[in-house]
């Protein structure tokens, strides 16, 4: 959250000659970041981002205290001028002016209220209106302006009620029930979902949405005579929940949800009463109500001076450490040469609990920029055993194979895409997938991003649609985790790579896959036809009888082929599209960089082409391996031509030990022809 702090206001509490620029620069380096300096007339206003832990800095006073501690570190004189707190005035009048009941003490750790009579509501003086104007708060009337002014100065939000609008002078602070309503000061009707802190008056009307915005029915108006000056601390978690669910992010709400210094409330009451009497003629009647069941606790922390040096990488003298801490409001309970016991100031009670918190205070005020920049030394212990793999997750060298595959796909002219991990119900329907098989988000951002994907294809098909208008030939891929649900456990995160192309057909894609895997040291693949018998979910993307699974030793490495025409139809893609999906875990487990040298033949080979006529539905792969296994002299066999049932093979006979003659080849050739004939494959007459 950002706040605005005029330099002139800051200097009510900070004595220094430092310029606005210097204050901004030093605050940014050592405390809260000043994002810019606004110039408003002659005034300079700091726009400061306050971190969530520093509720004490959501105030002019808090920042003055910080600046006073920091500026001397840069050699600039500065002193903190603490606010003067007037005494609470003596008063007569009704003792029990208000009947208060708090149903659960945890919702309001401190409840204070003062009744002011004879108030004259009217415009605020010029100086007050001008200061509020500098911090972008609209002046309403003197009563409301005083409460806003004190909030900006002290950080403590304040509410004011028209006391005569609180029926039967009774207040019940409680949690809202579902469906209850209140009209807030901005005239909007707020409907509660339950569990919000509210106040009900003696007639059962809700009169305040506590800590966020007051009720319209109890607001200060021109006729208000008696004002209830109301200063509280609330349960920060409930305030945040209500404020977020109503979308009502008021200055008060954002302060209450960060925290309140319970010990700072009384000084605020005293300042408030004094300003009310000066500017609105209000007179205190009766006593202050102060319900404070459990006093705020601050930690006593012992700090070793050596510890500071160890964590900074630089040794600081004890004197310097203690000066910094005292400037920030810490008090020293005990001290010796080795360390000190410190008491945390009340305005840091929620923020500083352990010695590391104190260390941060010393380090930041000393200045991070003054510390050296060093590389941590490498360990001297050398561990020979390989690093253990994580229970869940991936460790090198898997990444190496992922990157190599990406490089190869790039070389094969594919373009890489990154898509969201989510898919919509519509995507699942179009891909014929069941939504029950997917992990579903409890709080999706939109219905388009509701399910965690099991496959990269829905995303890739979506990408295909986007590019169809601009490109006639598309070759895209993605590599990412897919999330496969497991019962009572985290999903299995399967790293997959998938591609789509309309430039390759089955044979070209098969070659591409083989080349990729050979590059990774994997060969000896088994391609099996995907037919109707394999109808499980994972195979839904493939056109049956036009696709294959690719395995090695029973382990699935890839699936490839033509994308299911029904799915393409659902995406209104008219032409065939081919796809390939790689199982990265299996591939990585087999991938290797092992190279083996094969001797280069010294003697010339004999090459001959043979044409055969195949009967229908003869798998050529089996024929090729049959030929290969007939005799070791068959070095290589290539399919060089294929026309209808006629297939022409080029056979390369090679003997590593000597020259081949046709005499030696003849029996091999005859054996090949004979074996093929048994399968009904006939040598074509030349």
């Amino acid at each position: 959250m950002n706040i605005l702090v005029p330099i002139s206001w800051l200097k009510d509490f900070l004595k220094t000659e430092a310029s606005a620029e210097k204050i901004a620069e030093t605050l940014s380096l050592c405390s809260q970041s000043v994002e810019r300096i606004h110039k408003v007339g002659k005034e300079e206003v700091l726009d400061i981002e306050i971190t969530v832990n520093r509720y004490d800095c959501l105030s002019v006073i808090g920042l003055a205290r910080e600046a006073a501690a920091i500026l001397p570190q840069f050699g600039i004189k500065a002193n903190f001028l603490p606010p003067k707190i007037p005494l609470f005035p003596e008063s007569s009048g009704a003792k029990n002016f208000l009947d208060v009941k708090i149903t659960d003490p945890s919702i309001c750790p401190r409840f204070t209220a003062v009744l002011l009579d004879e108030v004259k509501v009217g415009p605020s003086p010029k100086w007050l209106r001008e200061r509020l104007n500098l911090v972008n708060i609209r002046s309403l009337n003197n009563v409301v302006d005083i409460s806003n002014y004190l909030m900006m100065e002290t950080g403590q939000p304040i509410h004011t009620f028209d006391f005569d609008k609180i029926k039967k002078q009774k207040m019940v602070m409680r949690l809202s029930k579902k469906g209850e309503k209140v009209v807030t000061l901005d005239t909007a009707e707020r409907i509660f979902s339950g569990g919000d802190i509210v106040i009900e008056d003696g007639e059962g009307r809700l009169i305040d949405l506590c800590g966020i915005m007051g009720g319209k029915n109890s607001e200060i108006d021109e006729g208000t005579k008696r004002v209830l000056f109301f200063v509280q601390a609330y349960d920060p978690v409930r305030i945040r929940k209500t404020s977020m669910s109503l979308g009502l992010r008021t200055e008060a709400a954002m302060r209450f949800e960060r925290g309140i210094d319970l010990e700072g409330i009384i000084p605020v009451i005293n300042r408030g009463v004094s300003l009310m009497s000066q500017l609105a003629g209000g007179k205190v009647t009766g006593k202050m109500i102060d319900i404070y069941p459990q006093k705020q606790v601050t930690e006593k922390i012992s700090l070793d001076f050596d510890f500071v040096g160890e964590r900074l990488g630089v040794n600081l003298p004890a004197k310097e450490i203690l000066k910094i801490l005292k400037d920030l409001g810490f008090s020293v309970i005990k001290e010796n040469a080795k360390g000190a016991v410190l008491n945390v100031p009340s305005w840091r009670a929620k923020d500083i609990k352990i010695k590391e918190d104190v260390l941060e205070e010393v380090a930041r005020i000393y200045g991070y920029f003054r510390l050296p920049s060093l590389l941590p030394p490498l360990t001297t212990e050398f561990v020979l055993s390989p690093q253990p793999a994580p229970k869940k997750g991936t460790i090198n060298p898997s990444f190496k194979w992922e990157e190599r595959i990406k490089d190869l796909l790039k070389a094969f002219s594919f373009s890489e895409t990154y898509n969201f991990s989510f898919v919509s119900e519509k995507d699942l329907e179009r891909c014929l997938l069941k939504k029950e098989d997917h992990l579903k988000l409890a709080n999706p951002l939109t219905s388009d991003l509701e399910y965690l994907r099991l496959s990269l294809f829905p995303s890739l098909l979506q990408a295909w649609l986007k590019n169809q208008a601009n490109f006639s030939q598309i070759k895209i891929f993605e590599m990412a985790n897919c999330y496969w649900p497991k019962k009572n456990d985290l999903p299995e995160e399967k790293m997959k790579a998938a591609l789509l192309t309309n430039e390759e057909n089955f044979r070209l894609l098969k070659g591409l896959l083989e080349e990729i895997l050979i590059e990774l040291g994997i060969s000896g693949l088994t391609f099996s036809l995907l037919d109707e018998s394999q109808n499980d979910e994972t195979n839904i993307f493939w056109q049956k009888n036009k696709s294959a699974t690719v395995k090695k030793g029973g382990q699935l490495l890839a699936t490839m082929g033509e994308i299911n025409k029904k799915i393409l139809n659902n995406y209104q893609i008219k032409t065939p599209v081919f796809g390939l999906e790689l199982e990265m875990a299996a591939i990585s487990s087999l991938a290797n960089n092992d190279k083996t040298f094969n001797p280069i033949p010294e003697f010339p080979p004999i090459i001959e082409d043979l044409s055969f006529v195949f009967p229908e539905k003869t798998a050529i792969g089996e024929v090729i391996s049959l030929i290969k296994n007939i005799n070791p002299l068959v070095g290589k066999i290539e399919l060089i031509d294929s026309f209808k049932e006629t297939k022409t093979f080029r056979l390369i006979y090679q003997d590593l030990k000597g020259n081949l003659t046709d005499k030696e080849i003849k029996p091999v050739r005859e054996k090949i022809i004979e074996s093929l004939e048994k399968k009904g494959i006939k040598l074509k007459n030349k």
Partner: protein
Amino acid sequence: MAEKIINLKNEAIGNILEAKDEKELERLKILYLGRSGKINQLTKEFPHFSPEEKIKAGRQLNETKKAIEEALENQLSAVSNQLSAKEEWFDVTEPSIKPKIGHLHLLTEAIREISSVFEKIGFVRVRYPEVEWDWYAFEGLNMPSTHPARDDFESFFVDTPAHPKLGRMTLTPHTSNGQLREMERIKPPIRMINIARCHRPNWDITHTPTFHQFEGLVIDKGINISHLKGIFDYFAVNFFGKDRRTRLRPFHFQFTEPSFEVDINCPLCLGKGCRTCKSGWMELGGSGMVHPRVLENGGLDPNIYSGFAFGWGVERTYIMRSGLKLGDIRPLYESDLRFINQF
């Protein structure tokens, strides 16, 4: 005879040197060296010579023949050089014919560069779960159940029963779950770089619901803030350029104490302040010294070990490199080939 041969030689070489094209040279070759060329015609006179004269004339004639051949060859190459310069004019400005090549995504480039910078100084790259239990993503990182990051509007949750001990199932909004996972995997010294997908319910010019972070974690005996500064300056110089430096500003995170916001100096003014950057510095990301409770949750004794951690957006860090000029990160996830194929 000798004079005749010399005259023939002079005449031939003279003609050859004057020849302007291949055709003329071919004609001269036939004229002098052809079957019924002038040299062969001279040999017809040989039968009238004495044996001594024959030897002498034969030698002289052979030398002449060689000289003419050489002259022809020289002139031929001279002539053909002139020809190619004139007739075969070669235009190197003609548009190229490119081999087909694909394109890797910018995020792949970014992840490769980031990991290589860290791997050089001993960081081990890992990738930890992207769908995670609350314990690893929040509670174990010292984020109490009331912490805003655990609100529905800050993180995605999976619609599935919670784990009895580890809590709700969430999509990691950061890579910091890797801290506890790494401490479970190995004991210090730890130097981890965890790069993974993260998810948050934000979608605007600088946020996408899916994004990537890289998480660094260093734990050992005696690790301090100066070491953290050293690693960041090392990264700045190696990833962004030699004049780039980092600075720390105080910040707040639950899982680190102290916590810092890391800035990098502006590439244009190098920290002095200019129109582009205003203050001279730009926010890079968060970091801090690992909170003692997080070390304890990872099974380490904070009195023995200390460390630091940082988790930065890959997209954000990469687009901060000067030259890319990408002001909006959403196109990174839109799969438009007109975008992807630029890189």
